[in-house]
């Protein structure tokens, strides 16, 4: 597993990265063109899953003006990206990305395939996970979290999960629906006792 280099940040002449600003309340004008709720089309290999949940604010009220952007590997654990060095196959028609808005009830839902374990050569594999970038009116910048799968043996050794205090890890775990196979629930709480874990990197 990799660690952050301690080298001092290089100052470049053109200045640091541009400052984030909130997406505001009217982002659908610009972002809705990219909305999708099906990450993997019918022909894509892997275990079909559906994930649904809601986003709540600190008062427990649903957040209807948020948007999730997810990024995930395919069922082999391979990303559609030139810097993925893993010797694993890509799947035709699978890009691994989707942008999903919340509805009036703060709810979102999408279907995909369960990602495989991502593993850099000579390193421990990461447990299967889905990255989530979350933006909304009221957030000045994106926050990032991860969805993990319950009862996954690799969770016990996943370097990112291990950095989260045990009491809060549950906020990252998908919850099986119980009645519908392959369906998971996953709520996001911006604040409160079960505040979702968000990452900085």
């Amino acid at each position: 597993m990799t660690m952050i280099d301690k080298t001092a940040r290089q100052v470049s002449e053109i200045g640091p990265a541009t400052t984030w600003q909130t997406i505001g309340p009217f982002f659908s004008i610009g972002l809705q063109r990219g909305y999708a709720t099906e990450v993997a089309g019918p022909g894509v290999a892997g275990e079909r899953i559906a994930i649904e949940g809601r986003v709540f604010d600190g008062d427990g009220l649903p957040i209807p003006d948020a948007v999730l952007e997810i990024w995930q590997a395919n069922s082999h654990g391979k990303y559609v990206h030139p810097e993925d060095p893993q010797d694993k196959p890509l799947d035709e028609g699978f890009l691994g990305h989707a942008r999903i808005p919340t509805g009036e009830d703060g709810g979102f839902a999408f279907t995909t395939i369960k990602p495989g374990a991502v593993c850099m050569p000579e390193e421990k594999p990461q447990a299967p996970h889905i990255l989530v970038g979350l933006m909304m009116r009221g957030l000045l910048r994106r926050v990032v979290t991860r969805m993990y799968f319950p009862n996954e043996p690799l969770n016990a050794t996943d370097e990112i999960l291990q950095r989260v205090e045990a009491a809060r890890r549950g906020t990252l775990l998908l919850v099986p629906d119980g009645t519908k196979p392959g369906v998971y629930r996953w709520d996001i709480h911006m604040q409160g006792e079960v505040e979702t874990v968000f990452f900085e990197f």
Partner: protein
Amino acid sequence: MTRIRGYRRWAAGTQPACLHLPYVSSRRRAPTKPLVEIPQTLSEITGPSWGARDVVKGACDLTTQHAGSPLGPRIIVSGRVLDEDGRPQPNMLVEVWQANAAGRYLHRNDQHNASLDPNFTGEGHTLTDEQGRYRFVTIRPGEYAWGNHHNAWRPAHIHFSLFGPAFATRLVTQMYFPGDPLLAFDPIFNCTADEQARNRLVSQFDWDTTVPCEALGYHFDIILRGREATPMEDGHDHDR
């Protein structure tokens, strides 16, 4: 055991915290617990990529999407997308959205007392060229009132959305206009501690891209996170 060549941490003070009390809606939506610091893995340094299939031809001109011309001063907004080392970022999707000249968004939640323009949607997108350049033709958006506090007004702005080469480089920001008297009073513009960083959100008037008898030009460069100088290695202290 070199592995991941990550992206640099955001420079201190140049990014907003999630919570900014003057921006009232951040109070019940910003996380209250510290963000958990993690190393970048393959998951963070990869991300969606874009190509010609992802853009509609002509979508970089927001003034020609309807039968007639939109109201308001026509402008050209152009610039470059670079990383922190000044390297141009080609084939990057740039998405923009904005209010019309009267300060009204084409959105059901915008009840601001200003007219909609049947000839203006306010959505545009494009890909950067080989030199990382983009160019939009649009109209200057109007200022508008909002409910954050008594007599609150947003300065004129255009929303910009970019992914960059990786999940880690995602950026959504707002471009402002030089000399706008509302900037000093806007809690969103002022959410970032570093004054220079804030001021880089203000575009520059640009004679070079101004088209005679047609449109004023504004220049706005966008900087995405640059790469770490060296790959991160096992065994290094991750706290800093």
